[in-house]
């Protein structure tokens, strides 16, 4: 499968540079404005959160953000509309949707895949659909050329890893710690070893996230991983400081990541 994700990671490899993946929540504040501003601030890949009432794998920052977004009237259709609007302005930055199964199931796996493709979406991370349950979703996405991106975690042993990376595409998201989003990052040396293991098993780039907040942490991880994901910190910065606050943080994080291997 070739799409913007493979192209972007090939470019990063060519420059021997780690990528910066910025997560934000659709519908929390002026999210369209932030989405449009992220590439210029240094985001190589964007993860757009689809708000859900019961985000079981997320920490307090993203939970609160999702509830604010829903309160403000955001829906899955609304999220896809923001993606489409973004895609009119930016044809290169890969856009990955991240969220939970029920709103997608409610729309219908196929209807969702079609709508997402039409909106210019490149990948999907569906937190509560593990490989054992993803047959229908994966089939629908593959038909539309959208990568199903899976999460690997510290609890994923070698046996399990083979199952996790089978049929995955785009990149593998390595969750650096057991726990919810924003909870604190794993030990960098262990993360490095895990990245190598996941990379060898999948043959795909590995992005590391969960608990990365500071440029120093991001830089340390970027020495070993293909990309670094930051979510909760950006969501908090957006809530507290608006688009300027969020893009300011993204600039600092992205330049730390981009400079890590120099």
């Amino acid at each position, binding site marked *: 499968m070739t799409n913007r994700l493979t192209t972007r990671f090939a470019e990063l490899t060519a420059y021997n540079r780690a990528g910066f993946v910025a997560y934000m929540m659709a519908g929390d504040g002026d999210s369209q404005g932030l989405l449009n501003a992220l590439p210029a601030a240094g985001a190589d890949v964007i993860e757009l959160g689809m708000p*859900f*009432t*019961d*985000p*079981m*794998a997320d*920490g*307090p920052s993203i*939970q609160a953000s999702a*509830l604010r977004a*829903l309160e403000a009237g955001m*829906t*899955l*259709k609304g999220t896809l509309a923001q993606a489409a609007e973004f895609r009119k302005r930016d044809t290169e930055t890969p856009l990955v949707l991240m969220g*939970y*199964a*029920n*709103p*997608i*199931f*409610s*729309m219908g796996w196929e209807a969702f895949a079609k709508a997402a493709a039409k909106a210019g979406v490149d990948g999907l991370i569906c*937190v*509560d*659909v*593990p*490989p*054992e*349950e993803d*047959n*229908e979703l994966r089939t629908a996405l593959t038909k539309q050329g959208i990568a199903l991106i*899976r*999460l*690997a*975690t*510290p*609890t*994923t*042993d070698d046996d*399990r890893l083979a199952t*996790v990376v089978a049929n995955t595409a785009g990149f593998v998201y390595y*969750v650096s710690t*057991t*726990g*919810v989003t924003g*909870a604190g990052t794993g030990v960098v040396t262990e993360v490095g070893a895990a990245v190598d293991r996941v990379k060898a098993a999948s043959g795909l780039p590995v992005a590391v996230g969960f608990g990365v907040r500071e440029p120093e942490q991001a830089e340390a991880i970027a020495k070993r991983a293909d990309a670094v994901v930051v979510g909760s910190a950006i969501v908090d910065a957006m809530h507290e400081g608006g688009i300027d606050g969020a893009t300011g943080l993204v600039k600092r994080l992205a330049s730390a990541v981009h400079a890590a291997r120099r």
Partner: protein
Amino acid sequence: MSETASADTRPNALSAWPDIDGRFGDFGGRFVAETLMPNILELEKAYEAAKADPGFKAEMDLFLTDYVGKPSPIYFAERLTEAFGGAKIWLKRDELNHTGSHKINNCLGQVLLAKRMGKTRIIAETGAGQHGVATATVAARFGIPCTVFMGATDVERQAPNVFRMKLLGAEVIPVTSGTGTLKDAMNEALRDWVTNVSDTFYVIGTVAGPHPYPAMVRDFQSIIGREARAQMMDRLGRLPDACVACIGGGSNAMGLFHPFIEDEEVRLIGVEAAGHGVETGKHAASLKGGRPGILHGNKTYLLQDDDGQIIDAHSISAGLDYPGIGPEHAFLHDMKRAEYVSATDEEAMEMFQLCTKLEGIIPALEPSHALARVRDLAKELGPDGVILMNMCGRGDKDVPQVARMLGVEL
């Protein structure tokens, strides 16, 4: 994977589900974050091994008789029968169990399993507090530290149970996220489990969650139906015309129904909480007022809006205040093997008082819902009919709330 469940691996009998993928027809499954998948698979293996081990069963049986007080009797509710003017009403007295509800049947099984697996910490979610109390009780008995997540709203309306859990040595964590009820407590318990995955055993209180929980909790609760079925045969020489139980997540109902599933002549009737009335939108009737979706590890009927966002349940009874239902109930509903009806807050309050006055049994608000439909069914079946209802919990915990609602200051 669901595609591997080909026709020849699917169970023939309705009572033989789930299939190897943890599915009851299209419902159930394992919809959890990857961090939990190895745990879920480990639990499934450990549970299968325990089931096959006579030593595990012997330990369970010993504690069920000497500690829980099994078997609980069945009781002919003569004055309710007279008052309703129809079929004979028999109550399965699971409210007489140690800790006052059916919940301990399951907690005992899961805590013994946790011990067997070498887990050193127990977590649980609770709504009314009955499951929390039962878990804290068994955890105390086996000396395992226990943390109970409870919605902040429920902490307030079930104060006696909160204090009871603390006396038992459990840490009670009030959950303020979302609406502070049972579903939020379950979210928070899952978040804890994701974080403390290696040493922690999550004791789920109902027949929901990822596989193997729905099947495992059902198996542990099936003692209700197995005992009641044998007791009916012994006392009446016949099976009841209908088994009736209230449903939140559906553990007491599933425990009562399961041993009767193959008895086609026995009607199985689940009573959901209609809150202010299903038509008002303020209710907890997932089958009557919801549609299939994915939440808390399984595919089942859920209260949700057009966008697939979960809608808060409403019920006077904290134990029924959940926007989903166990996947096996969803399956029995779609297969039309069980019937699902509902009762309102008001009806439950009326039955709570009636049962107390007539039988000298203070029912929990949860089974008070079931009594409301037993009343209709008694008339429908007439004097030759026999109804078996599970009195799944006693109402001591609800006394302060009922007093408040009746305008009485304690």
